[in-house]
């Protein structure tokens, strides 16, 4: 899934080199805006969004909430609507407190899910 046409054409060329194109279906959608109500049958989601590299250095710390174009909350909300199995890649220089704020929202919903099971 990709939003730029140029990179899709490059990816199609690269899949031919490695002889993998028959197994893959390419989609020209935006990840956040495509899943409005729909729910495809997927086992796993792999995410490596566009971290703008101008602000990443070895010493500085990376702010999740400001440097990414589609916000992380929307990405994760769209992903959690599909499945619970997610792989999300993060940079090295990162503040753990911001990451805890993100996951706290999802952790509350997970607690309610367990309570319902017990009932």
């Amino acid at each position, binding site marked *: *899934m990709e939003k730029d046409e140029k990179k899709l054409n490059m990816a199609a060329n690269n899949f031919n080199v490695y002889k993998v194109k028959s*197994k893959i279906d390419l989609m020209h959608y*935006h990840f956040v805006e495509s899943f409005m109500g729909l729910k495809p049958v997927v086992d796993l989601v792999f*995410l490596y969004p566009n971290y703008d590299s101008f602000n990443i250095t070895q010493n500085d710390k990376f702010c999740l909430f*400001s440097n990414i174009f589609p916000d992380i909350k929307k990405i994760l909300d769209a992903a959690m609507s599909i499945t619970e199995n997610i792989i999300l890649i993060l940079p090295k220089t990162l503040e753990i407190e911001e990451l805890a704020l993100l996951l706290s929202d999802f952790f509350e919903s997970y607690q309610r899910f367990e309570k319902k099971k017990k009932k």
Partner: protein
Amino acid sequence: MNNKASTGNSKAQSILKYFFPCCTESSFENDDIFTDNKQKSHTPLLFDYSVDQTVDRDKSKFMIRKRSEKLSLLFKKNICNCQSIKEKYKKEEKTNNYKLEKINENKKISAEKKAKLAENFRLLNSLCKYKKNEIFFLKYNLHGILCKLTYQNFKFPTLKTKRQAQTKSLIKLDEKFEEGKKKKEFDEKKNLFSLFHQGIRLDSDGFEKTLAEKICQYFAKKIMKNSVVLDGFCGIGAASIQVFRKKNNKN
């Protein structure tokens, strides 16, 4: 594509991206702040991929000027002293030993240096055979006597020939430096794709931001067989290649 600004952080993002445009072009469509008539196609030059080449050229020119100034001084000194020495030894071939004794009296010199000085006087006597048009490039020691000789048969150096002779030595250094760069790029490309030179395409964004091959193989091992995977934000497709390279998975 319609990528609208969603939250209040969009203004901060738009300001930072104006000064540091490493993002794709699609992210700058709806920035109404910076669409003046004067600055339609303005992009600052800080992080363009083509600017790095110009900076290296300016440094090389700057270094060439410094080195040329130093070498010009050496030429002038050595040529003047060379001509004076020739005239002396043509006339005073017999009194070479007398000059050695003077130098040894003023300073206490070790036996090794005395042998070197004696050899240098022998070489000077051999210079008298050469013609006037032939010029020598010499090097001096603190004791005021030759330590080495190098022979170069060329005319009196004009401006053109000086720069040509000076830049040849520097061009060799630049070639070695460029060869070192090419090796780095060659190694970086192999880290991303093992089959890079068999027809893979990239962008400047793709060359910087894609994950390496081994990292994608690490994730591919942990995924179960016969599972359906969705790769949002795939880009060039480095991660999805390694996952589906095995015989197990589907879409």
